[in-house]
């Protein structure tokens, strides 16, 4: 639904673009973890289902000033979602503590309006039924449902891992949500108890995952007051949960659309309030 709901826990990421080498391990880990079927013909990249895509950024200068950066783009888990507001059947919503935008496959009618709405291209469609090469079906993640053709899917911040982590806390006799040192409710799942597959696998530690609202979490410290931290398309007012960090100005400038003479340091004007 549409309301920008506040949650005590806000799962999020800080991705250090200066550490990312573009190796693509995060993409592969995501595919394996979330049961994304390989395609026999993957030549059309706009048809390949990927919940996380690594983009190559360039400063468009010639040698020796040429520089590139790589930007992994999972679902940005917007607090003000362009997608969930438009879904006609409430098949996607941000309605659970933690602020992860869900995708309910058995409810999705496959109209693809959410894909049209998402400016981050974070959503992909199942154009055909998934086909698993012989034997590969044995390696599927049991806690992640496979999707039939005709529905939209997207990154869930490995939500099944969150469920497992909560179960572990409950099994140990603890409460999932406890009051922290700042007198606010926090998730009792330890910082390393719930990590997405992309963050877990990144060889350079470029992706840090945790609770953005929890001062004890590394992700909170990385983004709070960091002048090098930015989010994608901030002027849209989507209030995303994925932060990027770069010490290079040209990389930060590619985080949003700017007029040629516009100063990136100035506070951005948020687009007019939505309808």
């Amino acid at each position, binding site marked *: 639904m549409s309301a920008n709901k506040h949650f005590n826990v806000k799962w999020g990421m800080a991705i250090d673009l200066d550490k990312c080498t573009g190796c693509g391990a995060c993409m592969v880990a995501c595919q394996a973890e979330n049961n994304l079927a390989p395609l026999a013909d993957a030549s059309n990249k706009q048809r390949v289902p990927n919940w996380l895509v690594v983009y190559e950024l360039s400063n468009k200068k010639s040698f020796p000033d040429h520089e590139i950066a790589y930007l992994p783009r999972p679902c940005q888990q917007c607090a003000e979602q362009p997608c969930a507001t438009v879904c006609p*059947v409430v098949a996607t919503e941000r309605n659970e503590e933690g602020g992860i935008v869900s995708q309910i496959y058995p409810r999705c009618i496959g109209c693809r309006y959410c894909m049209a709405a998402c*400016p981050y291209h974070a959503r992909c469609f199942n154009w055909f039924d998934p086909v698993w090469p012989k034997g590969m079906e044995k390696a599927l993640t049991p806690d992640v449902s496979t999707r039939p*053709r005709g529905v939209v899917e997207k990154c869930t911040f490995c939500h099944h891992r969150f469920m497992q982590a909560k179960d572990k806390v409950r099994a140990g006799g603890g409460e999932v949500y406890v009051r922290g040192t700042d007198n606010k409710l926090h998730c009792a799942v330890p910082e390393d108890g719930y990590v997405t597959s992309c963050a877990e696998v990144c060889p350079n530690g470029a992706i840090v995952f945790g609770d953005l609202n929890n001062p004890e979490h590394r992700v909170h410290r990385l983004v709070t007051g960091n002048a090098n931290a930015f989010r*994608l398309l901030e002027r849209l007012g989507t209030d995303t949960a994925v932060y990027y960090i770069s010490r290079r100005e040209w990389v930060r400038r590619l985080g949003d659309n700017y007029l040629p003479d516009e100063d990136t340091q100035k506070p951005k004007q948020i687009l007019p309030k*939505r309808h």
Partner: protein
Amino acid sequence: MAPNYIPPADAALIPQDCERGPLSCFALWLGALSVILLIGVYAAYLVLSRGLGMTALDDYFGFGLWITFDLGVIALGAGAFFTGLLRYILNIDPLKNVINLAVIIGFICYTGAMIVLVLDIGQPLRAWFGYWHANVHSMLTEVIFCITCYCIVLIIEYIPLILEQKQINRVPLFHAIAHNLHVVMPLFAGMGAFLSTFHQGSLGGMYGVLFGRPYAFRDGFFIWPWTFFLFILSAVASGPALTMLIAALMEKMTGRKLVSQDVKMLMGKIAGTMLLVYTVFKILDTGAWICGLAPSAGLTFDQFFYGWIYGKWLLFAEIALCGVLPCFMLCSASMRANPRLLYAAAVLDCTGVVINRYVLTVQTLAMPSMPFDQWATYVPNWVEWAPCFLVLAYGGILLSLSYRYLPVFPQEVELNGGQRPGSKPNTWGL
């Protein structure tokens, strides 16, 4: 009746005092349309059995030809509700001569759009979720509600015409139903106008609320973006024009006069007046978009266009060539009096609306939303084209059957009463 007129084999089914061509010619015509229809059925089978991967759509272009086609026919089918509103609610009496045709065209357009939508959604068996799990914040939910309800209204409006068929009307019950439905028709015309206004608007609203897509996003009034109102205006500006054009096309194909020229000119005048209102607001909206919204999104005017395929010529064609020009032509009484200019203006009018629906659907998605993203291009394949032609063939069949067997045109007998003996009564043998 022309003296050399030979009644066809199905003369008993044909409206009183109306000439029709031989049944064999008519069957041939229907056969040709059926071939097109069957190709579309095969494409539909491919999509439903194997998946939407059979189309040229992809993750960038979740919307493509089918949505453009749907929006186009729904806008052009607006002649039904708007003519109904003017005829039954505002009592513009001459429109009674074209209201039946407008209803049939509306019925074809809306049911045709439904056929294509069934193919376009990935899980057609879940289409009813739109009612069951309705998201009241989504413009598409409103579209689902209003389009399905309006389709029912169109069926109710079409039924009395079918019941007035010569043989069916002999049954007292059917005669009574047809008569009584005619009596309460203003009620359905009002319902149709209400439902249609809102779903035409919501179709526009669907794009205007996409705040992540600067090509489509618009500011607005209360919960409605400006595209909401622009879609309503453009639909009522083009719907009557298409109705008038189809009447003229049917006259060409059948060789008979079906609607008097003054009624066609009246339809042109209505379309022109609404087009004037639409064009003024469209120009204002475009100005606000270029000078206000675009810079606030950090974008320059040039960034909204790309190469030839998504070039500025589309904007020029939509607003100037297919907006201002036909508006001027349709608002001029002397130009309306010239049938060629009248039809040319109507064609431009309809084309402009289709361009509008196309750019808002495809160019919106083609444009890079993130600065490091690239423009994407989309060319539909035959699996997408075939169902569109299926709908056109289906429309042709339904119109042909209606023309041949139903009293669609009240003026037909009167207009053809003075036919010269020996004149060629029927150019296409229909």
